[in-house]
C-alpha cells in the first residue's frame, strides 16, 4: 500500500485531530448559530432573546470543542512519543518525519493554541469575534505549524508555512470592523506573500542544485554552486522573514498591535516556534555540510535583531507594540543559539545549544501568552488594554493581576528566578561554550537594555497612582483568562526553579534529530 497504511495515519494523527476539530467547530457554529443568524439577516421577524441564546451557546461551546480536539491530539502525540519504534521514522514517501524533536515543538505549539482557545472563552465574545471561523482558523494554523515542524521535504515546509500564514493573515483581520486590523493584515499579507514567493524561488534553485527536495538527500555536494548559492540565500531570506528577524521584521509590530491580543500571542508564539523548528531541521539535517557558505548569516541576523529589537522597544507607548519589538528581540536571542550550534563540529557539541533553543521557545510561549492575556483581561468592549501609561496604579486596584504581570515582565527581562532567566542562561552558556563569547556579550547587553522597558511597567504598576477610578473595571466573568494567567505564571516559576526535566526531554529530542 503506497503510504496509506495504519502507521502512516498514526504518524499524522495529531494533525488529523486538529483538522477535524477545525471542521467540527465550524459545523457546530453553523448548526447552533443558524437560528440566530437567520433571524438577524431576515431582520423583520427577529426574536432577540432567541438570537442571543443561540449565539451565546455557540460562543460557549466552540472553545471547548477546540480544547477537546487539542487534548485528543495530545493523546496521539503521547502515543507517538511512547512508540520508540516510530521515532525518526519517515512516512508518506519521506514527506513526514516523526521524532521527539518534532513532538516537543508540536507540544509547545498546541499548548499555545490551547491557551489561546481557553482565554478566548469570554474574550472572543467581548471583542465580537466569536465566529466559528475564529476558532477554526486557530486550529488550521496549529495544524499548519505541526506540519511545518514535521515536514521532511521542501513541499511540506512550504505547505506548512502557507497553511500557517494564510490562517494567521485572516486571523489578524478577524475583527474586520476595525480599520487598523484590516490595514495591518493587508501589510502582513503583502510582505508575507512576497517572502513566500522568495522562499519558493529559493527552493526551486535548491532543487536545481541538489536534484532533490528531501531534507536528508539535499546534502549531496552541489553540482552547481551558483544555483546552490542563490537557493540557500533566498530560502534563508524567506525563513528570516517568517521568524521576524531584523531587517525582515517590519510586519511584526503592525500585526501584533492591530490583531486581537489572543491572536497576537498565538501568532508570536506559534509561528515563531514552528518556524524555528523547521529552520533548525532544515539547517542541521541538510545544509550543515555547506555551512562555509552561510555561517555568517545567523550571527549577523542575531546581532541586528537583538540590538534593534531592544532599542526600538524602549520608545513604545503601546504595550502590544512593545511586546512585538520584544518578540523580535527574543528572536534575536534564539538566533544566538542557532549561531552557537555552528561554533563546534557537526553533531559533537550541537546538543546543548539546540536543546536550549527548545527550552527557550517553551518558556517564551508561556511568558508571551501571559503578558498578552493581561491586556485581554483589562480590556473593555472591543478594545485591548494597550496603553502603557494606563497600567499606572494597577497593583493597588488588582494586586493579583499586577503580580502576574510582574512575573511575566521579570521573566521576559530574564531576571531570576523566572523561566526567562534560565532560558537566557542556557542560550548564552551554550554560546560561550561553543566559542561565541562576544555574541553572548551582545545578548547580555540586549537583555540589560530590555530590563529598562520591562521594569518600567512594573514600576508604573506598583509605584504610581491610578489615573482614574474605574479604569480597571472589567465587565464580565473571565475564568478562562484567570486560568490562563495562573497556568502561565505557575509554568514560568516551575521552569525557572526546576528546569531540569524539560531540558532532559529537550536533550533526548535533539539527540534524535541529529
Amino acid at each position, binding site marked *: *500500500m*503506497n503510504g*496509506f497504511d495504519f502507521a502512516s495515519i498514526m504518524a499524522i494523527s495529531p494533525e488529523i485531530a486538529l483538522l477535524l476539530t477545525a*471542521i467540527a467547530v*465550524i*459545523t457546530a457554529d*453553523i448548526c447552533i448559530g*443558524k437560528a440566530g443568524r437567520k433571524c438577524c*439577516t431576515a431582520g423583520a421577524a427577529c426574536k432577540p432573546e432567541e438570537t442571543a441564546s443561540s449565539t451565546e451557546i455557540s460562543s460557549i461551546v466552540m472553545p471547548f470543542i477546540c480544547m477537546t480536539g487539542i487534548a485528543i491530539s495530545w493523546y496521539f502525540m503521547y502515543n507517538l512519543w511512547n512508540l520508540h519504534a516510530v521515532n525518526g521514522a519517515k512516512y508518506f514517501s519521506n514527506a513526514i518525519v516523526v521524532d521527539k524533536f518534532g513532538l516537543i515543538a508540536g507540544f509547545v505549539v498546541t499548548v499555545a493554541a490551547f491557551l489561546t482557545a481557553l482565554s478566548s472563552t469570554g474574550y472572543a465574545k467581548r471583542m465580537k469575534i466569536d465566529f466559528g471561523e475564529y476558532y477554526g482558523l486557530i486550529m488550521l494554523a496549529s495544524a499548519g505549524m505541526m506540519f511545518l515542524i514535521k515536514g521532511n521535504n521542501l513541499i511540506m515546509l512550504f505547505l506548512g508555512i502557507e497553511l500557517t500564514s494564510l490562517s494567521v493573515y485572516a486571523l489578524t483581520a478577524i475583527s474586520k470592523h476595525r480599520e487598523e486590523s484590516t490595514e495591518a493584515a493587508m501589510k502582513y499579507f503583502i510582505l508575507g506573500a512576497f517572502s513566500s514567493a522568495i522562499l519558493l524561488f529559493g527552493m526551486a534553485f535548491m532543487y536545481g542544485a541538489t536534484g532533490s527536495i528531501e531534507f536528508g538527500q539535499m546534502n549531496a555536494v552541489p553540482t552547481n554552486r551558483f544555483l546552490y548559492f542563490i537557493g540557500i540565500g533566498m530560502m534563508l531570506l524567506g525563513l528570516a522573514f517568517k521568524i521576524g528577524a531584523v531587517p525582515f521584521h517590519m510586519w511584526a509590530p503592525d500585526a501584533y498591535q492591530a490583531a486581537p491580543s489572543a491572536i497576537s500571542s498565538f501568532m508570536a508564539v506559534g509561528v515563531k516556534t514552528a518556524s524555528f523548528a523547521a529552520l533548525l531541521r532544515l539547517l542541521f539535517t541538510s545544509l550543515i555540510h555547506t555551512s562555509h557558505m552561510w555561517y555568517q548569516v545567523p550571527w549577523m541576523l542575531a546581532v541586528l535583531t537583538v540590538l534593534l529589537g531592544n532599542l526600538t522597544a524602549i520608545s513604545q507607548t503601546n504595550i502590544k507594540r512593545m511586546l512585538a519589538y520584544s518578540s523580535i528581540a527574543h528572536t534575536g536571542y534564539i538566533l544566538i543559539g542557532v549561531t552557537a550550534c555552528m561554533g563546534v563540529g557537526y553533531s559533537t557539541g550541537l546538543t546543548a545549544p539546540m536543546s536550549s533553543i527548545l527550552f527557550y521557545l517553551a518558556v517564551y510561549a508561556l511568558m508571551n501568552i501571559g503578558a498578552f492575556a493581561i491586556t485581554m483581561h483589562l480590556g473593555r468592549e472591543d478594545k485591548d488594554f494597550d496603553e502603557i501609561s494606563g497600567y499606572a496604579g494597577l497593583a493597588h486596584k488588582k494586586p493579583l493581576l499586577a503580580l502576574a504581570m510582574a512575573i511575566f515582565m521579570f521573566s521576559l527581562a530574564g531576571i531570576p528566578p523566572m523561566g526567562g532567566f534560565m532560558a537566557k542562561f542556557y542560550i548564552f552558556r551554550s554560546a560561550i561554550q561553543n566559542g561565541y563569547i562576544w555574541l553572548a556579550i551582545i545578548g547580555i547587553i540586549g537583555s540589560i537594555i530590555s530590563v529598562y522597558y520591562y521594569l518600567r511597567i512594573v514600576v508604573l504598576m506598583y509605584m504610581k497612582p491610578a489615573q482614574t477610578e474605574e479604569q480597571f473595571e472589567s465587565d464580565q466573568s473571565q475564568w478562562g483568562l484567570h486560568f490562563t494567567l495562573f497556568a502561565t505564571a505557575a509554568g514560568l516559576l516551575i521552569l525557572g526553579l526546576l528546569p531540569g526535566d524539560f531540558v532532559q526531554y529537550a536533550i533526548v529530542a535533539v539527540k534524535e534529530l541529529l
Partner: protein
Amino acid sequence: MSSNLLFLIIYTLLAIATAGGMLFASYLLGPRRNRELKDTPYECGMPILGTARERFSVKFYLTALAFLLFDIETVFLIPWAVVYKSLGVTGLVEAVIFILILAFGLYYIWERGALEWD
C-alpha cells in the same frame, strides 16, 4: 505526409467554400428590409435593457473567490484520474476523502450565505 496535407487543404477549401457559398446565396436570394428592430440582439425576444459591457457588482466577489478555489482543486484530481487504475481502492478512498473535504467547503460557504446575492 504530403498527401495528408493535400487532404487537409482540400478539406479547408471545401469548408470555406460551403460557408462562403451559403452566405453569398443568402445575400443574393434573401429579402432585405432594414428596420431598427432587425439590428437588436434578440429580434424576437426581450427588448434590451442596456449595454452588455457592464461592470459586475462587487457582491459577486465571494462567488468568484469560491469558484477560483474549487476550480483550482481539480488540479489534484486530474493526476489522480490519470493513474487511478493502478492506485486501486486506496486511491479511490483518498480521492473520496479529498472530495469530502471540498464538499465540506461547499456546505460551509452555502450555509454562510456566500451563494446568495439578493
